[in-house]
């Protein structure tokens, strides 16, 4: 590894001990000997297996649930419905005051996406749980469903989630997160060219090799140990505490080792119901997603639709940028109101543009709830922005890298959301990239600095 010290040398104390050296990961010796204890690498006598009966419909009213045959199945110990959950209505981010609660631990009255948890079967073996799950009878009245964000926002679209009352998340700023900076209409009027393009992305599954799951062991005195692969230990503890109406000190979460997560394990979907099951049966309970559940049920990266309109001058300056971004939350909020907000904060990208107008929407549809994945709210935004940058450069006949030098933000520039730029270093990164990629740019760009603007 090479540590280059020619940039910002005057700002750095040259006393770094760890930077620039390879360090072994502390957990690797146990990885290569197979000794690392993942949550499922434990056995408990009398373990119960939880199998979730899920909605086969995208949107339906539940008329009735008949458990009589399933309950009689050999090996079945208990079957849970929404009535068994102390606080069935929740939303993960209520912990940071992002409400309202909009999701049920087990479906109540309605299902809003294909795969929604309806009934939890607890049995002595996975086989018995699967057999009994097949005998649970749910009578559904299928309702019209909506899968496209722009369709969902039209008047008369099926209402996905009554807890919101409309098919978008209402921020304190209104129907969308907004950024207003300068005057975009004036900017477009002055521009030599205006380019408007729309970008779409599909949901992306994180697909960790280890599926989401937990094992819960009752410890006596109404205390429980939950072995989990969550990426969000305290979200899990606090939401479990709310859902179960139990003080947190009764719940001992053990984790920190995950067989990959990539954002796919930040939702609180297995632990509360498994703890409840252990509490109601007095037995240890294992709830582990099958591979199919991991791919179909666990929340993916959101689908996004992004429209970017730019005004650009022949000399390469972008003078106005207007962005409307839609984030498909699916049927429930999970982390998507935050993801859509992040998008608003991220536009207009690492460029200094005098006139900016941004609206980002968090939209509800009858699709699988989406949530976190590696830079959610930003990654797809960057895809759209950088494709747009290439198109703009082509439009004015300019080298795409030089075009970015012209617009790159520098220290001291005011960003659209009123944060002054600090420690940008974008110019220097592009200079190195230019050399590394063998993509030369004009000498004046190689003399630029993030620290100051040229006279």
């Amino acid at each position, binding site marked *: 590894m090479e540590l280059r010290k020619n940039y910002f040398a005057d700002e750095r104390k040259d006393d770094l001990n760890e930077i620039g050296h390879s360090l072994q990961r502390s957990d690797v010796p146990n990885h290569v000997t197979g000794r690392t204890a993942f949550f499922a690498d434990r056995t408990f006598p009398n373990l119960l297996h939880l*199998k979730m009966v899920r909605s086969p419909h995208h949107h339906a009213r539940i008329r009735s649930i008949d458990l009589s045959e399933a309950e009689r199945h*050999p090996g079945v110990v208990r079957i849970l419905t929404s009535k068994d959950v102390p606080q069935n209505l929740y939303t993960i981010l209520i912990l940071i005051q992002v409400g309202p609660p909009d999701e049920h631990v087990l479906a109540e009255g309605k299902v809003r996406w294909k795969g929604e948890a309806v009934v939890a079967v607890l049995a002595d*073996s996975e*086989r018995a749980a*699967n*057999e009994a*799950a*097949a005998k649970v009878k749910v009578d559904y009245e299928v309702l019209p469903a909506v899968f496209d964000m722009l369709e969902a926002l039209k008047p008369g679209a099926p209402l996905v989630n009554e807890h919101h009352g409309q098919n978008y998340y209402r921020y304190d700023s209104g129907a969308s997160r907004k950024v207003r900076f300068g005057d975009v209409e004036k900017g477009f009027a002055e521009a030599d060219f205006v380019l408007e393009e729309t970008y779409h992305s599909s949901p992306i599954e994180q697909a960790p090799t280890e599926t989401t799951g937990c094992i819960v062991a009752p410890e006596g005195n109404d205390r429980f140990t939950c072995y989990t692969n969550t990426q969000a230990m305290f979200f899990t503890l606090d939401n479990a505490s709310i859902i179960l109406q139990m003080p947190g000190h009764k719940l001992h979460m053990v984790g920190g080792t995950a067989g990959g997560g990539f954002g796919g394990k930040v939702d609180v979907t297995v632990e509360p119901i498994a703890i409840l099951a252990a509490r109601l049966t007095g037995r240890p309970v294992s709830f582990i997603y*099958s591979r*199919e559940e991991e*791919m179909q049920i666990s929340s993916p990266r959101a689908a996004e639709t992004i429209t970017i309109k730019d005004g650009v001058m022949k000399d390469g300056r972008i003078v106005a940028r207007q962005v409307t971004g839609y984030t498909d939350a699916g049927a429930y909020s999970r982390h998507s109101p935050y993801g859509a907000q992040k998008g608003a904060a991220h536009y207009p990208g690492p460029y200094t543009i005098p006139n900016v107008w941004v609206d980002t929407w968090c939209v509800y549809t009858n699709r699988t709830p989406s949530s976190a994945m590696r830079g959610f709210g930003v990654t797809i935004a960057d895809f759209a922005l950088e494709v747009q940058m290439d198109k703009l450069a082509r439009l004015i006949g300019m080298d795409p890298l030089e075009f970015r030098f012209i617009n790159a933000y520098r220290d001291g520039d005011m960003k659209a959301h009123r944060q002054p730029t600090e420690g940008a270093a974008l110019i220097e990164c592009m200079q190195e990239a230019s050399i590394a990629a063998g993509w030369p740019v004009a000498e004046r760009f190689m003399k630029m600095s993030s620290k100051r603007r040229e006279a």
Partner: protein
Amino acid sequence: MGLTLQSFPAVAEAGAALTAADSRYLGGGTLAVRATNEGDVSFSTLVRVTDPTLGEISVNGSQAHIGASVTMSAITRHPDLAAIAPAARAVGGPAVRNMATVGGNLFAPAPYGDFAVALLALDATVHFSDGTQPIEAFLAIREMLPRGRIVTAVSFTLPPPGTFRFRKVSRVKPKGVSVLTIAAVIGEKDGAISSARIALGCLADRPMRAKAAERALAGKPRTSQGIADALKVSGDGTSPITDAIASGWYRAEVLPVHLKRLLLE
């Protein structure tokens, strides 16, 4: 009901056990055990045959006879089966090939069953303990075999050198589930195609022949121009599957592209 494994030394005894409605034959496990792991509770007894002759390969002259329990790995390693080894090698990774059997591959639903595509192109014969059936007829009725009838082997004539062509298209390299699989035996004489037998995987729920394309190749030179008509009709009679790997539309669109590459390579 739990799951029970019953092992029998002979096919006949296993066949008798398989007449029970809740039983299923266990080959290499890549289909049957996967099904139980995924929650299939439609059967509770797995039946297997331990007769070692089901694991034997014999090649006499140009005649190959492969027992139903022979694994894909065994085929790839057999010196006399080098011509068709690419089709066996296309199945899964090394661990799957050490398990997946020829018999099981005949029953694998699309997008699986790459080796069966090759066997269809080779016009193989499927053997049971009480008779045989041409593979094309067998594939058409494979779910409707009488209970207890067990596939014991396949046999076929080894293709003359240079006539067998095989291509599996997948999105993940070097190995992924099939977008489509094509196997063909193309005979040539005096600069023209004298015989053509083309089998397609993933273009229906089971391997099928591209008969219109076969007919269109007859007598034509194996050139871009010569195969053009065959490519045009390559999708005739297909009903490509839609799954997580590709849509049926996509499979139909890329079939002529890959068939062209296969025929001209």
